[in-house]
């Protein structure tokens, strides 16, 4: 398969570009932020995503979805990134769907996702940095389990209808085995969600599980066998976050190159200065290489390839590095106005920082690439 979008994927890109550009451009995010919106995204917009079929992008046609893959989901996410659109698309339509697909949970949760009524959140991280360890415990209790522990950086966790929780049913925090993944509904007793606004004005919750009773049928896959669905979740989430980063980095680069052709100093356009030209050209190169890494990971994931996992880590690390460069150069080359809240380039910098952390930062993934290569 060639490493570029085919005709159908390009057509989808045109549709989604127009749609997001019209309904959720950067000023949509700015408006939510200025209104101090407590949800963190627009439920109406999520409904329209559903009407366009996008929320079912990874759901099979037989189940009412579009039956498409990670390349297509990435097309959507890149536009979300480019427009800085707050959306539960990544957690819900990509990560949660990829996790629940083919399990008993699909029948329960997919209709709500297809209808744009259900929003999912992923309760994975327990410390400030994403790690492989899982410490929150799930003890057998009655017919089900009792969850005790804390999670953080749970995007949309304060409003989610569906929570996917990684818990420990055996062994200790750093063991690879003994993890169980759960799909649980909202409004359970002894579960407190504290919404925290992040630097990019998105909202992530800190979750406190203080002996939360859940049914046994909340288990995704097998008890103690959670590593496999969790890996499915992480691969989808990381690939999706990479595509969104590509949109953020690409959007910042386009703004910056546009500004270089517009701003005059010393009697000429600043884009004519070679010091800036070379930096812009270097940035372009990094973004191109990042784009290749992302489509490679998406295609391998869609093909269920054994090498997908390393490709996903390469994509996440590479997009984090390239996009970080893009937003830094962006603010710098805008000069003083790049520091102002009124100008959008700063929003790109903030969003890039959040996405770079999500599901493991560039160092985390470079470490995985190294371990996979045996050093």
């Amino acid at each position: 398969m060639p490493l570029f979008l085919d005709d159908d994927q390009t057509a989808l890109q045109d549709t989604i570009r127009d749609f997001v550009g019209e309904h959720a451009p950067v000023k949509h995010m700015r408006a939510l932020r200025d209104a101090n919106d407590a949800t963190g995204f627009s439920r109406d917009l999520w409904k329209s995503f559903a009407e366009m079929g996008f929320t079912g992008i990874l759901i099979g046609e037989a189940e009412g979805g579009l039956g498409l893959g990670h390349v297509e989901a990435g097309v959507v996410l890149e536009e979300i990134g480019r427009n800085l659109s707050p959306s539960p698309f990544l957690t819900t339509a990509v990560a949660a769907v990829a996790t629940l697909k083919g399990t008993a949970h699909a029948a329960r949760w997919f209709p709500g996702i297809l209808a744009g009524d259900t929003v999912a959140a992923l309760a994975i991280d327990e410390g400030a940095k994403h790690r492989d360890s899982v410490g929150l415990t799930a003890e057998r209790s009655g017919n089900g389990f009792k969850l005790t522990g804390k999670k953080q950086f749970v995007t949309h966790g304060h409003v989610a209808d569906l929570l996917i929780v990684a818990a420990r049913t055996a062994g200790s925090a750093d063991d690879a085995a003994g993890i169980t993944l759960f799909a649980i509904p909202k409004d359970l007793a002894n579960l407190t969600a504290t919404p925290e606004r992040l630097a990019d004005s998105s909202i992530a919750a800190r979750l406190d599980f203080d002996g939360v009773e859940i049914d046994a049928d909340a288990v995704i896959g097998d008890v103690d066998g959670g590593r496999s669905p969790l890996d499915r979740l992480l691969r989808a989430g990381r690939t999706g976050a990479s595509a969104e980063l590509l949109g953020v980095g690409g959007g910042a680069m386009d703004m910056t190159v546009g500004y270089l052709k517009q701003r005059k100093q010393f009697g000429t356009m600043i884009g004519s200065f070679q010091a800036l030209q070379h930096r812009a050209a270097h940035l372009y190169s990094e973004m191109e290489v990042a784009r290749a890494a992302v489509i490679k990971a998406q295609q391998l994931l869609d093909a269920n390839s054994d090498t997908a996992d390393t490709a996903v880590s390469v994509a996440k690390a590479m997009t984090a590095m390239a996009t970080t460069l893009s937003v830094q150069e962006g603010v710098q080359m805008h000069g003083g106005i790049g520091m102002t809240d009124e100008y959008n380039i700063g929003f790109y910098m903030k969003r890039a920082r959040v996405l770079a952390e999500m599901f493991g930062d560039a160092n985390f993934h470079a470490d995985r690439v190294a371990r996979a290569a045996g050093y």
Partner: protein
Amino acid sequence: MTDLDTFRAETRAWLEANCPPEMREPIRTDKDACWGGRNPDFQPGQKEWMDAMASRGWTVPDWPVAYGGGGLSPAETKVLREEMAAMKCRNPLNSFGISMLGPALLKYGTEEQKLDYLTKIAKGQIRWCQGYSEPNAGSDLASLATSAEDAGDHYVINGQKVWTSYADKADWIFCLVRTDKTTKQGGISFVLFDMASPGVSTKPILLISGYSPFCETFMDNVKVPKSQRVHDENKGWDVAKYLLGHEREMISGMGLASSGGNPLIEGAIATIGLDHDGRLADPLLRASIASFEVRANAFGSMSERFIDELKAGRAHPAQPSMMKYYGTELNKSRHELMMAAGGSNLLEWESESSRGGAEARAWLRTKANSIEGGTSEVQLNIIAKRILELPA
């Protein structure tokens, strides 16, 4: 099975039967690369492998059959490359004819020129060198001064080229000459001639690596028939630029890890060792290598994407400049890390254990990657102007 699956199975079987075992060993030194030519210096297996591949047109799989190529589609060419990589088959023939002159002749050559030169390139019969740079025309190549006087049916060429790689080993040269002194780019013509022509002489230049892979080339009243000019008189700059695009593609390939294993990682493990967690025992070097490997890995996908887009006619015409810039800078980083990982073992310049300082010499050689074929700065200028359309 699709046609492509059938092709893959047949290709694998044929390679298995025809690629000699020596030709599946990693390339270690310059001599391991097969260049063909009139005075070849074959190592065991090289000739058999080159001839076997040439018999199917697979030294140039995507060229038309009429010119010695394999006539393969882009998809088939990709399959062939994948199968060769999987089996660690060496490139059967290294050649400036294949990577540089060939594409330019395919685009600009007359039918006669194509039939003659391309077939010989495909079979590895003629080894070519590139006469572009002059002492006063480097990055500003179009200021070249080597002159070609019109003498009826031929030109008389006088002047000097420099940095001509393998000029002393090459059979023929593709050369930029000035046919009009009144304009710059518009006064250049592109000619081909035999290095054995009267009046051609070469003088090797010693490099920091201790090797002399390139030369000064002198032309003293060299007669070149006009039939050996490619494209119109004074239109040589179009051919030169087109060829440079292909040269940059080839050089960008240096950013890719070689098909046989990963010498950087293997070398680092061998000298430094792993700790009890299986990590390289020098954490800072490990971090540098890991960040490098993310980029190198991503660039591997970029190369694949670039070729796919090129074959589909979707690549930006200046994209080879990005590939050249990124690939060569990456290759320099790789060799810096290899030297750091190898420590004082790799500083030995002559010892047997260092294979005559092979690694150190290769490290020094890579420094030219971002100079030859147009410097990194020139590539960045091209990206800025032609892709980002920044003002002059």
